[in-house]
């Protein structure tokens, strides 16, 4: 697997546009839209609901799996990802039923990665064994912070102690394990973050997702920020310092950043996310899930109805939860590939880009190279260390 993320090697015979997805492989994303409570920073499609009819949801997921499988017969599945919301609140039997159906729908490689996002409270920890028995072989835990007052400020329902306990159980249960932290929090100093990150590294996960806090519109933090009531956030300069410090510490610990916010021991990269970043095909199932599917040589973008009840209803009544299906032109695909691919340290294959696009990036690449933000080598374009924290600026320059 490490070949996917390591040395920049252009494929010897470039795949045609119709086969382009094979460069990234094929994965399945399953969205579970419910949480125990809504975190103030979060703008994922997550909802708090008193009652969830497991039977109806099981039937809906299964019906959607069959619908999509009929479009993509015979594809070898490389990964499954249960994302949320909080999938660790799913009944393990529901996860088992879904995975059973998945196995019936597609052939799968024997190294298939099956990840489930988990919140680190005791409620979830109790289900870990059930998830493993259902076939889950990797968990990604939302620990978010290693100090209690920040966990409270982030509106989390767990303490550090609880999180560590859940983490220990997970480590004894699953082959592979990752956890998420959010940094650049209110009033967080560089030194405090460095100390916290060292502690996180010492927990010996094989993968870490380290996200800088993003203030999103339409969230509680977003509203507070707009009213000037969210103080103590780092400015761009301090945020950049924190970003570089993060790279340094993880590099030294043998968990180098392989993507903007993701760090892993070699070979432990998230294969599922690598499908997005190397622009493969993926089916998206569940409320608000997105997909990219190449059908009869044409790539489409799909998007499901966001509201959980409406999605459930549509699947039950109309046999499909998708609302949008867009035809993606070669140019569309090229820019999506560029946008996602440059997040990864190994960069993008310019031959592949020009299979999809007629656009000549050379002048902009030369300009950006002169600022030391990107580098080009044997047909591979990658963002330098200095360029990583300003990737959006680079993309704006490259976009036509």
């Amino acid at each position, binding site marked *: 697997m490490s070949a996917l993320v390591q040395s920049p090697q252009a494929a010897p015979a470039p795949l045609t546009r119709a086969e382009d997805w094979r460069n990234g492989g094929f994965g399945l994303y399953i969205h579970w839209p419910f949480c125990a409570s809504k975190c103030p920073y979060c703008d994922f499609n997550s909802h708090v609901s008193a009652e969830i009819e497991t039977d109806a949801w099981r039937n809906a997921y299964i019906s959607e799996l069959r619908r999509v499988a009929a479009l993509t017969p015979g594809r070898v599945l490389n990964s499954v990802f249960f994302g949320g919301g909080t999938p660790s609140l799913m009944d393990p039997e529901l996860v088992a039923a879904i995975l059973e159906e998945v196995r019936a729908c597609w052939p799968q490689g024997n190294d298939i990665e099956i990840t489930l996002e988990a919140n680190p409270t005791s409620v979830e920890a109790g289900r870990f064994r059930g998830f493993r028995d259902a076939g889950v072989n990797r968990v990604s835990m939302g620990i978010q912070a290693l100090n209690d007052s920040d966990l409270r400020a982030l509106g989390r329902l767990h303490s550090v102690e609880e999180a560590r306990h859940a983490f220990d159980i997970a480590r004894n249960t699953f082959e592979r394990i990752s956890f998420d932290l959010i940094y650049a929090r209110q009033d967080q100093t560089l030194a405090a973050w460095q100390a916290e990150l060292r502690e996180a590294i010492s927990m010996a996960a094989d993968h870490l997702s380290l996200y800088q806090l*993003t203030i999103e519109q339409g969230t509680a933090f977003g509203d507070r920020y707009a009213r000037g009531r969210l103080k103590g956030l780092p400015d761009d300069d301090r*945020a950049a310092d924190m970003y570089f410090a993060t790279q340094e510490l993880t590099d030294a610990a043998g968990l180098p950043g392989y993507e903007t916010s993701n760090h892993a021991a070699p070979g432990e990269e998230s294969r599922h996310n690598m499908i997005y970043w190397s622009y493969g095909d993926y089916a*998206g199932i569940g409320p608000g899930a997105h997909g*990219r599917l190449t059908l009869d040589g044409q790539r489409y973008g799909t998007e499901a109805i966001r509201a959980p009840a409406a999605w459930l209803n549509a699947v039950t009544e109309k046999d499909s939860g998708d609302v949008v299906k867009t035809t993606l032109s070669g140019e569309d695909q090229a820019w999506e590939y560029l*946008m996602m691919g440059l997040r990864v340290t190994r960069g993008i294959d310019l031959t592949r880009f020009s299979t999809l696009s007629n656009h000549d990036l050379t002048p902009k690449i030369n300009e950006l190279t002169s*600022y030391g933000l990107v580098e080009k080598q044997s047909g591979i374009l990658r963002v330098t260390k200095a360029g990583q924290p300003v990737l*959006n600026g680079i993309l704006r320059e490259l976009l036509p």
Partner: protein
Amino acid sequence: MIKLSNIRNFSIVAHIDHGKSTLADRLIQLTGTVAERDMQAQILDSMDIERERGITIKANSVRIEYPAKDGETYILNLIDTPGHVDFAYEVSRSMRAVEGSLLVVDATQGVEAQTLANVYYAIEADHEIVPVLNKIDLPASEPERICEQIEDVIGIDASEAVHISAKTGLGVPDVLEAIVTRLPAPTGDPDAPLKAMLVDSWYDSYLGVVVMVRIMDGTVRRGDRIKMMQTGATYGIDKLAVLKPQMTDIDVLGPGEIGVITASIKQVRDTRVGDTITTEKRGATVPLPGFKPAQPVVFCGLFPVDAAEFEDLRAAIDKLALNDASFSFEMETSAALGFGFRCGFLGLLHLEVIRDRLEREYDIDLITTAPSVIYHIHMRSGEMIELHNPADMPDLTYVDHLEEPRIKATILVPDEYLGDVLKLCQDRRGIQMDLTYAGARAMVVYDLPLNEVVFDFYDRLKSVTKGYASFDYQMMGYREDALVKMQVLVNEEPVDALSTMVHRDRAEARGRMMCEKLKELIPRHMFKIPIQAAIGGRVIARETLSAMRKDVTAKCYGGDMTRKKKLLEKQKKGKKKMRQFGKVEIPQSAFISALKMDD
């Protein structure tokens, strides 16, 4: 035709916000000119921009009928005028069309700078003046004290001032009676050759050019053929009307009356405010004394952000100019900005109003270059050149000396803020001419360079005096001074649109301030950008805008790339709204903001 003795014409004048338009509302309402259900506050302020900013920009006239206590019904023509100093021209010419003025004074504020300025216009026009003390509904009002102040400061009798609240209507009937009993009726001979004063003209999208006139002598009827005495052009009258305030057709207008005419006039420019209109046949031979034309004092370049919109801009400016004769323009080209227009305005508010209207009514994004006044450049050859744009400054070796326009500024300010005001004027290279007291308020008169006042003097004055000072000015002529052209270089490239003329002694401070401001105003780029101010080839100030350090999307949403793509595309569009100078994008707002001083 209406008997002269039953006509009264008057203007309502006051300092900004003292309640002129509100009083006009009450007069219109009390006389039933507008049906109750159609009434709205400041009904005469009909332009969007007037309603939004809550100020009057254009003088407006309305005809009302008033059955007085003496049993007679009178025709009253009122003209509501703007209070802001930029539009003083509207006031002075309105005065010429009427015989009297209601001088409105806010009884909580008292006499302010424009109160004085406007009284002088009224006195100059030989008006009978009725003082009106407004806002007596407010607990803070002090009508007695303000009456004394009027007598002390202005020197007119205020013993019979009418005390009112334009807001509640209290006392307004007394205003109507005072108009009839205290203001003179107009004079004029209905049988003499026609002499109609062209008071105003504007463009109406349905009717074309509309001309407002005050008949001095003679009569005019629909269908008459008329002649503009200045241009000699003749027209047949299509429509004759009075404003109530909607146009209401009328068959004939006689002496003392105010009304509007439409004819097949193509452009507002074909009508000269102050011109005399007479009949084509058996017309008058001697015109009425004309008005001094309005002089633009502030100039700036207007360029479309998107160069492709130049033709749209041209069309929009042409249309706007139809409505506003005091705004001048001519085509301009700039190395960095391409094609645009150099426009002249009566002041900065006027500039903002025109720019707003262009952007809003015609949907064109504009770059406004640094505003400038007109400098006189005396060349070694003895020739004198008017410099409207610092970018056109000739080679200094050919220049003997420069002169700049100066103004006489009158500022009224409560004692406690006097020190701040004197400091502000001093900082702006002012020379004190006079300082007197009226009660607890000082009246200071300063000789100031116009270019120090144009950008932000008024804002600064308001802020250092917490809004308690008022300000008025008049042009005084030109004087020599040590002026230099300061250039701004962004990423080593001169940006013409940011060139300004400054006094040599102040150049360094100004340069430093502009560089600092620009550093704030220009967004960070992918590379670091030096920002410099220079005189000739010499750099006098420098700042460095560091390169962008952090802009990346931290997390991805389970394969949702559409959203991120949309965001980047939107940001990219935003970038395109900025103008490119070399490799640097400068937002349009930077050009004026960079000049505002925080002292």
